[in-house]
């Protein structure tokens, strides 16, 4: 059987971060999502992840959804 290549830690970590952010994001209602700047700050603080990383993941996710 062909051996599966190991998943690099960084890729796996990135995927975990993305999952955490999107879980929180999707749990929010449309009213809460209105103030995007404050929301990104809040997610950044509660998840202890840089704001820019939150923004990157949200942007990737939104573009993948075509919105």
């Amino acid at each position, binding site marked *: 059987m062909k051996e599966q290549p190991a998943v690099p830690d*960084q890729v796996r970590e990135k995927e975990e971060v993305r999952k955490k952010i999107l879980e929180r994001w999707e749990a929010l209602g449309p009213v809460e999502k209105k103030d995007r700047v404050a929301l990104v700050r809040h997610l950044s603080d509660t998840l202890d992840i*840089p704001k820019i990383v939150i923004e990157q993941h949200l942007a990737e996710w939104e573009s993948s959804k075509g919105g």
Partner: protein
Amino acid sequence: MKTLETLDHDVLLALTRHDYDACVSLYMPIRRIGAEARQNLVLFRQLCQDANQKMERYKVDKALQETLRASLRGLEAEDSLWQNRTDGLAIFTAEDGVHAYHAPIAFAAQAFVDRRFYIRPLLSLLRRQGTLSLVLLNQEGARLLTCHADGCDEVLPPRHLRSLQDYLGRYALDKSLQFHSNASPAAHADSGYAPAYHGQGAAGDGVQANKYLEEYYHHFKNWLLKDGKLPHRVYLAADAHNEGLFRKAVAGLRVELIPLIKKNIRQMDDGEITAAVQAALEHAARRDGDAAYGDLPQTEAAVMHSPAQIVKAAHEKRIRTLFLPESENQLWGWFDRKKHQAIVESESDVMVGEELYNLAAIRTLQTGGAVIVRGGDGMQTTAVCRW
């Protein structure tokens, strides 16, 4: 000889726990440079001579005089005493031993023979007690230090907050920024800190780096807020640029940021930090002392200025705070334990006297009170009593 390594409330209590028939306290400045250093022993001998004359005048028991003289003579051969690079030296000799303290201030040369060690010149050094929180900021990252008069201890954040590069590297944000790499990776591993971003690289790196640094400080501040690590007053060692970014990060919080050193400092054992910390601790203590003195109780019975009353109150364990003037005016006499009253008298020719302010300070410390030395016009010795 026992050397007092540090000076705090407990050390003073231990030093003054005995009353003696007679004991000797010597204070002197220390010259630290080459030929001038030889003057230290000359001055020490003069002070010993002064103490000898006082012991003769006070008619101290001959055998005790000889014991004290022998102790003092023995100190001339104590190299550690004369080679220490501090500004002042205090020596305390009694029948049960000798104590020495190397002080960070130059004392006026004085010799005392009293029934207990004379500690008033040391009291102002208690102002340097306590700790302060110092945040060092620079392009490498932020560090939280808990500092006291003798040095600093670092409170380590989680690994990813120990440097800007660690922080950015965790999310692969450091790819476009160039970091200094002249130090070996092993050196970084030893220090636990990553190399500094040097502000060069792709176009726009400077702007981007500032954004990253601001965000890093924001998360460092979040870590400080956890578990109450961010006190009401935080001292900073940083240049204007880093200070500005950190101020933005803590904006809106009830935190007083006090610039202590206005430049970037990388080593926590930097002598400049110790000197600045000592000055800041002393300044804070002076301010607290001034506030306490300006807020004396209005009840006359609770506040007293008469030395005799103060010494009596100190023996009755009544003094909560004793304010002593910085100027060292001495008041000699003795405390009559049978009549329970202080007798004020000029320096005795027939017996070992007691410096009454020193006595009041010792008794106040021994009974849990505070002694505050402060300057200022119109400052007079004042005791605030518990009842």
